[in-house]
């Protein structure tokens, strides 16, 4: 097997067995980046020198027996909204075009402690606002399955980099589907953990009450291994929760006998592409054959998720993005007169259209006289959505459905109609509103040759049930990948 075809866990095992060195693996993936970046543009920044240096350091520690974990020595890509000490971190925005953090995010530190080699920072929708990675100020990322299509977003660079073998796994962040949807569009596995499972310290916030960091990877085994490394209680993040159930690899068991699986009818209505629907239902059938108890149910409130999400996320974003003012770091406009003109010009020039749209939307819903009607009401609906899921999880272990209504759209089709783009988030955002874990994995290929995603949703902190179900399905489904790789 060539190095690039290995999963993260396979590579780590090969390194451990001295079949491959960390440097060889790093050089191999850097060569792949050199070859493919022009075509896919997964990265904003590739840190070749840093990666090679880290590779040698990590190898020493592996040889010394200091690093023994399941991911030691494996090169990883990091979404560009996670701070990396000494390495440019832009959020794919012009306003952070020169921002080099003085500290690394906790999730990245956890990976480094486990012996990861950081390859660079992946492209994304600007400040994670978008579903296609086209709102990046540094150019669009292309879907490795078909370069005329988007990779999804906002973690499109991370998903595409995994699919294009420009890394062995990647970190993304998910506020309304930003890990799961690009994972679905690029045919890889992505997990949005329970809110509070992974520290947000060092993640440049979009919607603080919804943001969560998670893995994008080649298979469910890698997903479990990465989760074990990044799930730690962090005192620097007040919303981080202490949990003992972080032994995710123990859930890599091929068994769903008696597992109660619910299929929300509301997720299979109008707007869902028939090929996506068929593939998802077929996956449910597979699980049923494996012994799961599968039944349909009514989740309710699904139609309220999108307005609720865009009210809350935009409100938080409008405040979170205030700190980008040109004073302390980042881009500052030239030729301003006085403080307020500097703010105005810097932010007008530094932010892209989608970011400005959400800042305006968020400022509006928080403004005096509208706060109760929009923001407070949205918080109440959010609580109701959580309640609907609580009721569902009283009956089911796992809920399954599609990740997105369609497979990856063509480049340039989405941005002209933002409402349509927002509607594409319908199956993913409720999960963020309710703080639940959600896993996306490939379950088929449509007639255009694009991958279809299956979404598994669990109750809070029930990632292990998702992993067990996903692992069982993956075993039945068999190896999944692009034709050129098979």
């Amino acid at each position, binding site marked *: 097997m060539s190095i690039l075809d290995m999963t993260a866990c396979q590579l780590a095992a090969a390194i451990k067995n001295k079949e491959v060195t960390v440097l060889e693996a790093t050089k191999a993936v850097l060569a792949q980046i050199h070859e493919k970046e022009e075509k896919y543009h997964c990265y904003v920044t590739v840190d070749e020198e840093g990666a090679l240096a880290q590779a040698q350091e990590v190898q020493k520690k592996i040889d010394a027996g200091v690093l023994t974990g399941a991911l030691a020595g494996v090169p990883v890509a990091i979404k560009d909204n*996670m701070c990396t000490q000494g390495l440019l971190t832009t959020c794919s925005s012009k306003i952070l075009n020169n921002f080099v*953090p003085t*500290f690394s*995010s906790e999730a990245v530190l956890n990976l480094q402690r486990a012996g990861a080699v950081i390859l660079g920072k992946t492209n994304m929708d600007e400040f994670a606002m978008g579903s296609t990675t086209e709102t990046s100020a540094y150019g669009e990322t292309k879907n490795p399955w078909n370069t005329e299509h988007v990779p999804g977003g906002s973690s499109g660079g991370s998903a595409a980099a995994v699919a294009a073998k420009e890394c062995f796994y990647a970190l993304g962040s998910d506020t309304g589907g930003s890990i799961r949807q690009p994972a679905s569009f690029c045919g890889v596995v992505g997990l949005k953990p329970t809110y509070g499972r992974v520290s947000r310290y060092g*993640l440049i916030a979009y919607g603080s009450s919804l943001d969560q960091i998670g893995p994008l990877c080649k298979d469910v085994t890698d997903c479990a291994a990465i989760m074990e490394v990044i799930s730690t209680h962090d*005192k620097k993040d*007040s919303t981080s929760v202490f949990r003992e159930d972080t032994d995710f690899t123990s859930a890599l068991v091929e068994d769903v006998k008696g597992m109660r699986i619910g299929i929300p009818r509301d997720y299979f209505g109008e707007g869902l592409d028939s090929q996506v629907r068929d593939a998802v239902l077929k996956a449910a059938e597979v699980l049923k054959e494996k012994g799961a108890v599968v039944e349909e149910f009514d989740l309710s409130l699904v139609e309220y998720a999108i307005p609720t999400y865009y009210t809350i996320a935009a409100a*938080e974003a409008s405040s979170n993005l205030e*700190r980008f003012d040109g004073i302390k770091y980042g881009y500052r406009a030239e030729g301003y007169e006085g403080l307020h003109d500097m703010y105005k010009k810097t932010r007008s020039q530094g932010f892209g259209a989608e970011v400005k749209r959400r800042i305006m939307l968020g400022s509006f819903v928080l403004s*005096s006289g509208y706060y109760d009607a929009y923001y407070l009401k949205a918080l109440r609906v959010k609580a109701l959505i959580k309640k609907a899921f609580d009721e569902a999880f009283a009956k089911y272990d796992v809920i399954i459905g599609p990740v997105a209504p369609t497979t990856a759209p063509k480049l340039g089709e989405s941005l002209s109609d933002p409402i349509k783009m927002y509607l594409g988030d319908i199956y993913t955002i409720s999960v963020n509103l309710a703080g639940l874990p959600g896993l996306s994995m490939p379950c088929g290929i449509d007639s255009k040759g694009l991958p279809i995603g299956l979404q598994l949703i669990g109750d809070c902190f029930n990632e292990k049930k998702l992993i067990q179900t996903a692992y069982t399905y993956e075993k039945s489904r068999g190896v999944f990948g692009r034709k050129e790789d098979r």
Partner: protein
Amino acid sequence: MAKQYETVIGLEVHVELATKTKIFCGCSTAFGGEPNTHTCPVCTGMPGSLPVLNKQVLEYAVAVGLATNCTITQYCKFDRKNYFYPDNPQNYQISQLYLPICRNGKVEIETEKGKKYIGIHEIHMEEDAGKLIHDEWDDCSLVDFNRSGVPLIEIVSEPDMRSAEEVIAYLEKLRMTIQYLGASDCKLQEGSMRADVNLSIREVGAEEFGTRTEMKNLNSFKAIARAIEGERERQIDLLEAGEKVIQETRRWDDNKGESYAMRSKEDAQDYRYFPDPDLVPIVLDDAFLDQIRAKQPEFREEKMLRYKEEFDIPEYDIQIITGSKHMADIFEETVALGSQPKKVSNWLMVETLRLLKENNMDPEDIRFSPENLAKLISLTDAKAINSSVAKEVFEVMFDQNVDPEKYVEEKGLKTVNDEGALRKTVEEVIANNPQSVEDYRNGKEKAIGFLVGQTMKAMKGKADPGMINKLLKELL
């Protein structure tokens, strides 16, 4: 007859809490570091940083709330107040609007007109901003974030005060309560206590409130009193001239004795307050409140009553000593070490107050220890030093907290108790001052004072004046 006006005043008081570290990060709150040395990613608003609440802030805020008879909000939250300014690193301040930590309190004040309650609308916790320094030379502004994130509580009163006298009494009451709690040193001049005055006037007997203004930049009790008088007159003049008071924020210039408008209500910003999603709601159970309650100190009123019963010292002394928690602590600890209360009180009331005044210091700044004061008192009790030497030693002790026993030993200041040596000196003084001796013998009692002084001078101050007196009288 001219119309009679009543002044209606409410206060917003900011108090800087005496925590060692900032409200949402581990940086030091120490005053006076080099610019931007007490900073980290959190208090400079770096992307990706997150706030974590300092528990001590919560404890102080609850302690102040309990001491001012507030209802404690047992499910409370922090909110973001959004506004752009360079001293505000995130461009939002973390504060409390919707669920402040304390509500519906009251404190009793006493003025010449008698006792009265002043209502407290709420107390909330928030972070301080950084400081802007304008560099005229380079024509630019610099930001120092050392103050950014220093914990504050804002105590908002009801509009219950009617005069400057009541305002000062209320502020004194707050200051005393908070100092007793150790929650802040409450120094107006240094800005650890800041008061904004909301003032309106109305005709006596009217029920409706008039339009109010808010006055800022009040750095002393005197400035507050002057600002209240000035603003009352300004508003009366406006109304008498048939004009309207405009709701606005004004800045007091104490040197000129007048205020000027900073911004009107029309310019008021929409702060777009909303709950800070980075901080989880704070749930305070009864056990936590009981714990804080159990730790509440004896406050001034209780202390005064106890002193009256326990110590034989004048009421006036009690008032002054209990007027500072620090001074009261020194008093009590010194007495506990065995010194006579009256003597301890005398040292505090006379020499200590004099030196504080001369050095422009507050009682909170007293540095000498109760142990050293007790030693000094026992040295004088034992007549090991005389009173003028004791004062001299006390000055050094006040300044450097020296051990008086060691100091007296080292400097050789002990009273000479050798009667033979003293008698010899007295004889010499008598021989050298025939005029005074004659005056005394002729009935001029005062003349003996001169002779005592001369003897003391010859003894370099190290003699017991009583003994000199005795010897003089004997030899004359």
